[in-house]
């Protein structure tokens, strides 16, 4: 596949690794933000091939993992209603709520459907006027334009039976939360390439300078990750703290203006609770008041839910880079993909899932 295979090339990988080994003279801790990047790293075995001086820690870039427990419980409550078709991306179905997950709701007879695109959910609403269609709009900035467009489209079509349950989160506030923590040991970042495709990277420049950390906007293929690591390490070795763009074939400094405009018309910034981490101010999106008719949280009066996290789950610490998945006492024992205690073990972008599936505990 063009523009995919070239970035999985073994010879290129070897060259980059050689150069990294040549450049590294100190121990450095680098965080890759996005769960998709974590998976590439573990799936290709990159972390085992890097010099031992380099420590890669994993960031909170898994929107499935950070969706607050209350919202999962709300989703479960809404999906259990008989007049609802509850639609979601595949990843959300196995995320554990306080009592059950969406897959269990489906097994018990709820109409829970996987969609590939939010526009599919809009189409379902058109095709099923007697039902209410709710779409679980989870994601970082990458997915926000698509979700915004689907709400916009629903409004244009005059649909009365479509709404979204919104759990949108933003990367820069999360990075700032990590950087401003006194326990932070991250010295450089591989920023999320697809988030920056939409948002551009201007908002990272003040972060890099305030906290004196290199931030390299990085793609998702093994070659991208290796090149991103190389660029970050070069900055660290040279004492620089700038924003650089490894993913230049897709990311522009200003991002996608059409997408940003659409998002601003439909969403506004709000405080958001991140599962395992807590409330981060101004770190998410909610629907603007004029779109309240499409906001599932406004429409469905879901009674006060008593949330209960597993006391053993240290997801928050893993996602902020303080611990690795196998540092968790429950990892692989009480907590497995079949019986997850927290979201990172079931999300396809979760660090715990990556470590479990690719056998990090066995070496």
């Amino acid at each position, binding site marked *: 596949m063009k523009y995919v295979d070239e970035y999985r090339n073994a010879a290129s990988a070897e060259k980059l690794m050689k150069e990294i080994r040549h450049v590294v003279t100190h121990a450095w801790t680098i965080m890759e933000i996005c769960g998709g990047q974590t998976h590439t790293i573990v799936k290709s075995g990159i972390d085992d091939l890097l010099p031992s001086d380099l420590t890669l820690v994993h960031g909170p870039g898994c929107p499935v993992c950070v969706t607050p427990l209350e919202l999962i419980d709300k989703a479960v409550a809404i999906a259990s209603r008989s007049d609802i078709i509850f639609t979601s991306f595949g990843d959300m179905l196995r995320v554990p709520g306080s009592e059950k997950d969406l897959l269990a709701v489906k097994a018990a007879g709820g109409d829970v459907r996987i969609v590939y695109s939010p526009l599919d959910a809009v189409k379902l609403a058109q095709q099923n006027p007697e039902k209410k269609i709710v779409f679980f709009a989870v994601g970082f900035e990458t997915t926000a334009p698509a979700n915004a*467009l689907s709400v916009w489209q629903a409004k244009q079509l005059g649909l009365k039976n479509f709404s979204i349950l919104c759990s949108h989160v933003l990367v820069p506030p999360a990075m700032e939360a990590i950087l401003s923590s006194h326990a932070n040991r991250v010295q450089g970042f591989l920023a999320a390439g697809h988030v920056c495709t939409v948002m551009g990277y201007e908002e990272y420049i003040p972060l890099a300078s305030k906290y004196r950390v290199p931030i390299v906007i990085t793609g998702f293929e093994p070659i991208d990750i290796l090149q991103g690591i190389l660029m970050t390490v070069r900055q660290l070795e040279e004492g620089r703290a700038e924003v650089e763009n490894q993913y230049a074939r897709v990311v522009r400094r200003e991002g996608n203006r059409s997408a940003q405009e659409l998002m601003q018309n439909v969403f506004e910034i709000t405080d958001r609770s991140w599962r395992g981490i807590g409330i981060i101010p101004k770190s998410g999106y909610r629907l603007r008041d004029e779109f309240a008719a499409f906001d599932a949280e406004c429409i469905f009066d879901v009674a006060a839910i008593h949330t209960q996290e597993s006391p053993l789950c240290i997801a928050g610490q893993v996602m902020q880079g303080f611990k690795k998945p196998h540092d968790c006492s429950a990892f692989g024992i009480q907590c497995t993909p079949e019986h997850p205690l927290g979201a990172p073990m079931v999300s396809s972008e979760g660090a715990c899932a990556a470590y479990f599936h690719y056998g990090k505990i066995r070496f």
Partner: protein
Amino acid sequence: MCLAIPGKVVEVDAAVSPLMGKVSFGGIKKNVCLELVPEVKIGNYVIVHVGFAISMMDEEEAQETLKLIEQMNELGNE
């Protein structure tokens, strides 16, 4: 974040709103919403996430990156 794949635009349907088209991913064609890349033309490569093209691929930049890596080590280590 998230799964976004590069593909080649093979059809554009300007008659609908939002703008739609067909993108080919190594031979598989899928309907993709092109509303977010209004300047797109047939033959361009785009990055597609959840059924939406979110950016155009800058093919020159892509080649530059690959060339840079090709040339690495050939110049010898400093």
